[in-house]
């Protein structure tokens, strides 16, 4: 497929890797923010193409993974109600809450449905006026315009039976949380291309300046990631700390203005709890007062629910790049994609799932 296959060309990948090796003079640690990039890196073995001095640390950019147990439990409580049709992206269905997951609610009679787009849930609400349709809106800045549009359209259509259980999270505060941690080892970031396709590059400039870290907006194919790494190393080796855009075929400097406008219309920036990290100020999006009628937490009275995280799952450390998935004692034994302890083992963007899928054999052999 055009714009896909050519970015997986092995010859070109080796050339970029050779260039990275040529200019690298000392050890560097880079963090790829997005879980989609983590999967590409592990799947294509990009980390193994790089010189040993370069360490790729997997970041917190899997939206499913950073969703706190508390919110999953709220989803389970709402989904179990007889009047509710609970709609979600497929990734969330098997994420464990403190006692169950959405699929087990479905198995015990709850109407839980997987949808492709938030607009499918709006359509369902129109078609089934006797039911309450709730959409589980989880995701970064890439997904926020899609749930914003769902709420906006529901409001325009006067739908009273549609609501959103919202847990949108923002990348820049997460990067700052990583950089502000006392034992932070990250010296440069590959920023998430699709997040920046919506938000643009400008909001990363103050972070690059304040912490003196290169931030390179990067795509998701092997050549994108290798070029992003190369651009980071070029900056690090020459002492620069700038925001650069590797993914210019999809990311404009200013981002997608119409999408930003609708997100701003429907949502406001709020504090948000991150799984394993805790609350980060101004790190999420919640519905504005004008759209409060679409807030499922209030509609179903679950806003006050508080739940502690499980202690056995070390996903918090994985999400902050402090340990690699296979360094968790439960990895591949008590925690597998069939019986996950945490979301990082479930999601198609989770680091633990990536290691389990593509790195399981050598890891088990080494254990």
């Amino acid at each position, binding site marked *: 497929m*055009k*714009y896909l296959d050519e970015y997986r060309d092995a010859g070109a990948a080796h*050339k970029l890797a050779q260039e990275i090796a040529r200019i690298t003079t000392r050890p560097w640690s880079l963090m790829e923010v997005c879980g989609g990039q983590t999967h590409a890196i592990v799947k294509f073995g990009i980390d193994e193409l790089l010189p040993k001095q370069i360490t790729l640390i997997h970041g917190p950019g899997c939206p499913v993974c950073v969703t706190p147990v508390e919110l999953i439990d709220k989803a389970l409580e709402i989904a179990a109600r007889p009047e509710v049709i609970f709609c979600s992206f497929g990734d969330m269905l098997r994420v464990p809450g403190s006692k169950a997951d959405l699929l087990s609610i479905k198995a015990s009679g709850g109407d839980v449905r997987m949808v492709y787009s938030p607009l499918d849930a709006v359509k369902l609400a129109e078609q089934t006026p006797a039911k309450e349709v709730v959409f589980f809106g989880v995701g970064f800045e890439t*997904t926020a315009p899609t749930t914003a549009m769902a709420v906006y359209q529901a409001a325009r259509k006067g739908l009273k039976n549609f609501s959103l259980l919202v847990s949108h999270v923002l990348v820049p505060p997460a990067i700052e949380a990583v950089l502000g941690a006392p034992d932070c080892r990250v010296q440069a970031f590959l920023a998430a291309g699709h997040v920046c*396709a919506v938000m643009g590059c400008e909001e990363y400039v103050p972070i690059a300046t304040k912490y003196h870290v290169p931030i390179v907006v990067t795509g998701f*194919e092997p050549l994108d990631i290798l070029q992003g790494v190369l651009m980071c190393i070029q900056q690090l080796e020459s002492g620069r700390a700038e925001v650069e855009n590797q993914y*210019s075929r999809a990311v404009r400097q200013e981002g*997608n203005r119409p*999408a930003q406008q609708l997100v701003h219309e429907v949502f406001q920036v709020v504090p948000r709890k991150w799984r394993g990290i805790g609350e980060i100020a101004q790190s999420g999006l919640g519905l504005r007062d004008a759209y409060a009628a679409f807030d499922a937490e209030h509609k179903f009275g679950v806003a006050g629910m508080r739940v502690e995280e499980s202690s056995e799952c070390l996903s918090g450390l994985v999400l902050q790049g402090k340990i690699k998935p296979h360094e968790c004692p439960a990895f591949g034994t008590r925690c597998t994609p069939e019986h996950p302890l945490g979301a990082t083992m479930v999601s198609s963007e989770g680091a633990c799932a990536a290691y389990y899928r593509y790195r399981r054999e050598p890891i088990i052999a080494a254990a």
Partner: protein
Amino acid sequence: MSISGDDPLMRSGKVDFGGVLREVSLAYVPEVIVGDYVIVHVGFALSRVDEAEANQVFEYLREMEELSDHQDSGAGVSPVLPGVSPSAPASPVQ
């Protein structure tokens, strides 16, 4: 790709994902016309792929080659990644 809808917020189009056709909202890409490639996320086109910018990594590689005599280790293509992917255009759909 085919495009329908007069209201900019309701504008949608058919997009070809390597053979699978899907109706996608074009509300956020008012500039898109039939034949463009778009980045799609959960049913929404979020960005138009810029053809000139898409070539920059290959131009960079060519410049690198002119500066050195690196060996080519042969081309290979890996299977398609799951998740968000650029999409291909299709002839207008009836």
